[in-house]
């Protein structure tokens, strides 16, 4: 694929000459064609999935979704079954949808608050060793999630013991209390990037402002709450939406810390299971996938501005 016509001439066309105009039009046309091809390639798969999720089961399994245009038949039955069906083969997706919500909300709130506190201390409280603490947190970005899965899981299930003496007991969480494990794990993993992003924004606030507040006798608590938080609200929104999408779309952490049942596993875990064991039950897979996609899409579209700003500020978590 090329962006421009392959004929490259060294001739300098006088501005507005006929040749120049023709070539310009050609360029525009090729460019538009390329743009359209990419846009179509990028939207068709999702559209196909969405359309299929609305077709009756026997049709999904026997004909392609494009036959819809010659033989339109729509139904909401797939959604009904995948969300509310109670047989073990159906999705029970409603249950997992609730799990995803219960996992996501605290997993966004906690890191947001803790990262904001830490970032404020690192940016505006002058204490000895501040740079070293910052560098330490910053450097933790290199530790991949995979490094901490096994030990963190044993921390939850066995507690901490040093040379045979139990220091911290196991968490031994059952049923819905298991969500706390997932919140804990997500919060830990979010902090290095969160502190880094928020520190970037906070340290750019004008120093005179802080100075003025201090001279007026404001405490750090007051400065943080009344001055810094409102000023970095856009940054908080950026990190919040990042973390939301990350947690909602995460598979690995959910798989390991939330288990695989309807008691606490998020939707992504369920979908991955269904794709593995019921890979040909397309009526459930398509509807289930679309349910899981809708909420992040809404959040994303309504807050795209903040998301883009975050991307450009270097906020990408591995």
């Amino acid at each position: 694929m090329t962006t421009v016509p392959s004929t490259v001439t060294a001739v300098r066309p006088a501005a507005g000459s006929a040749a120049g105009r023709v070539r310009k039009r050609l360029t525009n046309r090729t460019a538009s064609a390329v743009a359209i091809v990419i846009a179509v390639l990028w939207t068709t798969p999702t559209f196909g999935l969405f359309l299929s999720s609305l077709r009756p089961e026997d049709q999904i399994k026997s004909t392609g979704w494009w036959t819809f245009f010659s033989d339109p038949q729509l139904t909401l039955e797939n959604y009904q079954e995948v969300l509310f069906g109670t047989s073990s083969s159906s999705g029970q997706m409603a249950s997992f949808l609730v799990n995803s919500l219960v996992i996501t909300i605290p997993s966004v709130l906690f890191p947001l608050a803790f990262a904001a506190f830490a970032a404020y201390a690192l940016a505006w409280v002058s204490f000895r060793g501040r740079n070293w603490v910052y560098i330490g947190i910053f450097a933790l970005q290199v530790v991949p999630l995979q490094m901490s899965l096994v030990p963190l899981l044993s921390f939850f299930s066995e507690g901490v013991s040093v040379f045979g003496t139990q220091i911290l007991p196991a968490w031994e969480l059952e049923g819905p209390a298991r969500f706390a494990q997932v919140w804990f794990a997500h919060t830990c993993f979010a902090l290095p990037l969160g502190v880094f992003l928020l520190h970037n924004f906070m340290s750019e606030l004008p120093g005179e402002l802080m100075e003025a507040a201090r001279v007026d006798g404001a405490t750090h608590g007051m400065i943080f709450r009344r001055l810094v938080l409102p000023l970095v609200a856009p940054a908080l929104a950026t990190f919040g939406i990042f973390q939301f999408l990350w947690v909602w779309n995460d598979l690995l952490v959910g798989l390991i810390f939330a288990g695989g049942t309807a008691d606490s596993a998020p939707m992504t875990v369920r979908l991955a299971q269904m794709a593995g064991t019921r890979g040909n039950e397309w009526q459930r897979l398509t509807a289930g996938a679309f349910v899981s996609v809708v909420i992040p899409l809404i959040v994303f579209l309504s807050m795209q501005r903040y998301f883009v700003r975050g991307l450009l500020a270097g906020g990408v978590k591995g």
Partner: protein
Amino acid sequence: MNLDFDFAAEQPKLVQLLLGVVAFCAVVALLLLLLGGAPAQPRSRPLAATLLLRLLGPAPTRARVRLLLPLSRLLGRVPVRQRAWPQAAVLLAPALVLLGIGLVVPAVRTTVLSFMNGDGTAWVGLDNYAWMFTQPEAVTVLRNTLIWVLLVPVLVTAVGLLYAVVVDRTRFESIAKSLVFLPMAISFVGAGIIWKFVYAYRPEGSDQIGLLNQLVVAFGGTPQQWLLEPPLNTLFLIVVMVWIQAGFATVVLSAAIKGIPAEIIEAARLDGASPLQMFFRVTLPSIRSAVVVVLVTQSIGTLKLFDIVRTMTGGQFDTSVIANEMYNQAFRYGETGKGAALAVFLFVLVTPIIVYQIRQRREAAR
């Protein structure tokens, strides 16, 4: 079909959510309370003086002043710097404790575990690493990861750049960018299912339900099981990653293109540069640092990739990558040692790239 979904069964979860949110509010309130005590810096009337004045009362007697004077001297000598410490400690404590438990200690333990056997009971030296680099099944995993990390960043950057250039300053620019950007919001699992459906296979002769096989058939070919045949199946998985990430590249590169000074473009145009010359001599050099950002970020993300492989093939048919194999070894086969060794190797691969990224970022900030 049985549809009596039990809504009451969901209630304990919502109670748990409520508990979580209440705990959150309590923690934040406690931290703010602890912070509220001392002023950020000594005011014109420092804390010690305030305290003294209060002790002296509204009508200080000479005896009281004499009693409190040595105390005030003592308090007055306490340096300001020390008082910042408790504040910083309160602010940093939650983050530091969590990072310690969640990342620092585990990273050390994983490194130790990588020199031990499957259940962590005996030292095995470098056996796990030897396994990783010599056993065919493990070498395949490393080879696949290499293919991923060589192809994904380049393809993502190429597609993103191409798209950013062709939609730049057109009437539909923002909507066109949104279309390509949307997959960023979709989970890798969701994307995996979307593409599994595109690759779906039906035997020759029957109606195809997958788009790709339908196209193949329409052009007279025979339908293929795209995800089952190595080594091509890895390429079909890579397509999914490129599809998800191209929007990221488009947004970052498009912003960089918009940042090129108009005079440079105008000058090149007046000199009669052709579109191709314009791209290679003007645009590309001007956005070099943004291109590097995209390449580097994508390399890191690709090295850690897990979800797509897990959802679409489960790592079967020679498609496994390091992160997926790490999960299999540690959590499915009970081979903690091998899993840990893979995790450490991942760490070793990722670290130099991130260090480079940080340096690049600093240079850009200057």
